[in-house]
């Protein structure tokens, strides 16, 4: 089957949905292609958003409402196998001819099993930040045995700033997510003790530093500057962790009921395939390069291919949505010549 449209938006996460809405509202024809059978992307797995504790389902719902009112053609369950600025081929064989493309294909989560020393997938009570969000969603935080954890360690930078796993970049949002999650744990389990192990606290956004202070002063969350070097299982599913308390320059050891790994953002392998097919430039991290970081952040090295959201780098939900608006405007400008 051959379809025709003005713009193909690849990826039905928050950036893709927003870009498609904007294009339609401006009177342009647009097809939104999503690999999954539902829209919303990774945000669907999230419970609440930093720093305001806004419910993520509210954000998705708002975007989907906007989408409903627009005339966007959504192709769900459709995997893109080939892309250029004028053609998008799907796994089903469908070809969409177009005049511009917006890539909003996002990121992959770092697979925590690769950091073997933390025993994710092996030890019972080592979980990831995503698993924890799932627990928040169900309303109970519990260890595998069903008990509420009394001591929780949160480890920042798992799969970020780590050359051992080919992830040199900072995933940017994990620090503030860790602060948010620590507070949520304390809100649900006020008697629990939460220890955040960090290398640097990167509180880059509005209200983030304030949230960090709130976590310290109001919620008594402990912050220890040092990366956990290994975890080992103790009897009854507890875990022993080792780190350096770098501010006292002493090794530190403690046992916890639960270890939460803040998994970073990884560039999907498909970025390299797209780059190979279209001539898009990639950063060393595997994310797609913008044409210019300052004035043309949503443009790429290939005319007619635009980018929005985490396809170019780790970003917050707000940043991704704003970029989607910018990308759709840039795409419109391009097709109008």
């Amino acid at each position, binding site marked *: 089957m051959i379809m025709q449209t003005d713009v193909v938006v690849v990826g039905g996460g928050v950036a893709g949905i927003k870009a498609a809405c904007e294009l339609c509202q401006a009177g342009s024809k647009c097809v939104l292609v999503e690999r999954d059978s539902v829209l919303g992307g990774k945000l669907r797995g999230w419970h609440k958003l930093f720093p305001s504790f806004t419910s993520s389902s509210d954000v998705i719902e708002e975007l989907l409402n906007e989408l409903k009112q627009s005339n966007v053609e959504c192709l769900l369950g459709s995997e893109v196998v080939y892309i250029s600025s004028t053609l998008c081929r799907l796994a089903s064989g469908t070809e969409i001819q177009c005049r511009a493309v917006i890539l909003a294909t996002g990121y992959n989560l770092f697979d925590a099993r690769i950091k073997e020393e933390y025993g994710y997938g092996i030890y019972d009570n080592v979980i990831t930040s995503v698993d924890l969000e799932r627990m928040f969603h169900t309303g109970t935080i519990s260890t595998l045995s069903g008990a509420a954890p009394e001591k929780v360690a949160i480890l920042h930078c798992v799969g970020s700033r780590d050359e051992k796993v080919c992830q040199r970049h900072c995933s940017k949002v994990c620090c503030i997510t860790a602060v948010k999650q620590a507070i949520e744990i304390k809100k649900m389990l006020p008697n629990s003790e939460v220890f955040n192990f960090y290398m640097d606290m990167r509180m880059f956004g509005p209200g983030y530093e304030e949230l960090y202070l709130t976590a*310290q002063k109001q919620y008594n969350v*402990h912050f220890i500057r040092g990366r956990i070097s290994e975890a080992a299982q103790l009897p009854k599913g507890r875990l022993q962790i080792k780190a350096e*308390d770098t*501010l006292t320059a002493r090794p530190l050891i403690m046992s916890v009921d639960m270890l939460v790994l803040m998994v970073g953002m990884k560039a999907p392998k498909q970025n390299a395939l797209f780059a190979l097919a279209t001539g898009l430039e990639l950063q060393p991290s595997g994310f797609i390069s913008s044409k210019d970081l300052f004035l043309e952040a949503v443009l790429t090295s290939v005319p007619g291919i635009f980018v929005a959201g985490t396809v170019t780098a780790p970003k917050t939900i707000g940043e991704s949505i704003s970029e989607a608006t910018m990308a759709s405007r840039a795409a419109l400008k391009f097709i109008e010549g």
Partner: protein
Amino acid sequence: MAVKNFGFSISRPRTIDMDKNNLRKSNEILRELPELQACIGCGSCTASCSAGLLTQFNFRKMHTLVRRGEYEGVYKELSKCMLCGKCRMVCPRNINTRKVVLLIKRTLGDF
């Protein structure tokens, strides 16, 4: 049992063992002065310390050790503080560092 002398003894670990340390005193201090937890370890206090200039005294390290339940020797160390108050002036988190010194000494006693 006769203890044999091998010419060496088993070195004791320097590890801070958070399972063995008793955090009761530490929690007492933090309850009275929650702002101490806001320390970001910048070291301005130690940099400007009149006692630290002349001795090994490191205020940042001392209160961090207390927060980990490592009390031994802290009282003696904190006695080096001249209570000049410069550290309080430079602290970006606005921690009442003079009070921290006095509070730790009072809570721990001659530990």
